[in-house]
């Protein structure tokens, strides 16, 4: 703001912290986005996730780490998959989980998002897992919690608009690290509707932070955001060229409402150009892995033999996803 330059006033009362996810001690207290997080913070969560993977294999599939904590799954947009993985993660940590599916209807009843938060805080919520259709909604909640002095209440972004889906980004990173070990020599290709994809944005920020030297995005001009290069990626329109010699292929889900209208003529034509087939996958390295955040549209973005093939790590992603979400919850709830 240029008006700031006239005189340099002291920071205003209630000055913002240096990053909205960090508390006064600089520790991660919310997980809102991977953008701007130090590599150590991301790696810390990936490391913390590792021992959690085995808890799912125990006789008693839970540990008492978050016993007595109350976690609200606050889903303003329905998503059975993501909500379930957060619910399982919370239950494996012995937290009490309350699922709230808040459709558009309740906001039209007049209660605002922050009214809902205040009410749930009065029920002694410890963690909010928030899925919202609008970019930035979890930031709004986190800011509100700070403004109202509730520093012990935490927010996890479970997907906001087109902006971020950091826990998905972390589980993608975990999966890549599991199979490929070192990010600093990897070519990662993200294919599909990057424009509307919070999954892509979070993964891109994570990969560039952890030092992946070559991140590419592939899609038609209607589905790649303008200035996408500013995120540190190389755009391709030709999928075969985009896959050339890569180590990791991440296929994005194509929402059905994008398949007709002015973005794309049809799902059939999309599959022809951007569907992952064995023939196209042959352009990647022989040991390249194939990922998908789910749920898949078989025959739209991915061919069944590839989705079920030996290079697909789509099911391990789901397993790792629970451990990563346990790591996220226990890290922020402890800070």
């Amino acid at each position, binding site marked *: 703001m240029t008006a700031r330059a006239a005189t340099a006033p002291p920071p205003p009362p209630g000055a913002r912290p240096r990053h909205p996810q960090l508390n006064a001690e600089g520790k991660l207290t919310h997980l809102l986005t991977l953008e701007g997080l130090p590599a150590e913070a991301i790696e810390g969560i990936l490391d913390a996730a590792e*021992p959690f993977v085995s808890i799912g294999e125990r006789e008693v599939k839970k540990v008492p*780490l978050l016993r007595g904590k109350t976690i609200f799954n606050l889903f303003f947009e329905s998503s059975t998959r993501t909500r379930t993985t957060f619910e399982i993660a919370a239950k494996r940590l012995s937290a009490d989980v309350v699922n709230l599916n808040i459709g558009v209807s309740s906001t039209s009843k007049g209660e605002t998002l922050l009214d809902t938060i205040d009410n749930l805080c009065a029920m002694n919520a410890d963690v909010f897992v928030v899925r919202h259709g609008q970019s930035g909604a979890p930031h709004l909640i986190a800011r509100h919690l700070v403004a109202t002095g509730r520093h012990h209440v935490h927010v996890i972004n479970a997907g906001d608009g087109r902006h971020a889906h950091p826990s998905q980004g972390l589980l993608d990173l975990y999966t890549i690290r599991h199979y490929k070990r070192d990010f600093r020599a990897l070519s990662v290709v993200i294919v599909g509707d990057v424009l509307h994809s919070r999954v892509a944005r979070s993964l891109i920020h994570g990969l560039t932070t952890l030092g992946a030297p070559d991140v590419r995005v592939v899609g038609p001009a209607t589905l790649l955001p303008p200035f996408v290069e500013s995120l540190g990626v190389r755009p391709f329109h030709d999928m075969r060229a985009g896959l050339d010699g890569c180590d990791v292929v991440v296929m994005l889900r194509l929402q059905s409402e994008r398949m007709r209208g002015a973005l794309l003529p049809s799902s059939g034509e999309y599959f022809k150009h951007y569907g992952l087939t064995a023939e196209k996958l042959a352009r990647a390295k022989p040991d390249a892995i194939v990922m998908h955040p789910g749920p898949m549209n078989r025959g739209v973005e991915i061919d069944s033999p590839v989705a079920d093939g030996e290079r697909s790590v789509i099911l391990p992603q789901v397993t790792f996803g629970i451990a990563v979400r346990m790591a996220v919850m226990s890290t922020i709830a*402890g800070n």
Partner: protein
Amino acid sequence: MSASADAALPDAEALLAALAERMAGAVARDAAFVGIYSGGAWLAERLAEMLPGEHPLGFVDVAYYRDDFKRKGLKANTKRTELPFDVEGASIVLVDDVLYTGRSVRAAINELFDFGRPDRVELAVLVDRGGRELPIEATYAGARLAVARDLSIVLARGEGGTLSLGVEPA
């Protein structure tokens, strides 16, 4: 007696030998040894070699069962708990380096029970420094030492696996 310098601490290898001697004959020949990370894990490995019989080995990291999560948060570098034997009906010797407040042992016992119902759980420690805050006692101890409250006793493993004791400010 109060140990305020390394010189005053007994030799860890000698304590381990004394501990093994106390356990020999008393511990079941098929008892599983479960070390609490990290010092207890080294000791469990050594004891399994030194004592007669077949002793399945296991390791626990009690990070998820601690009672200080609220104050300290999630511990960094948490290890995976590995109990590659059937805990149900097993005879188990928990192994730790230093027994102090008893809180780690409480956490470890709780963790064991999430894997099954053992027949018996015993506790072997290299050093019992007193100061208990819970009704927990060692079945076998290498030595009993009194140490100032503001100091911690730490077990270290050097080149070649030699164990040694040191003190650090708590």
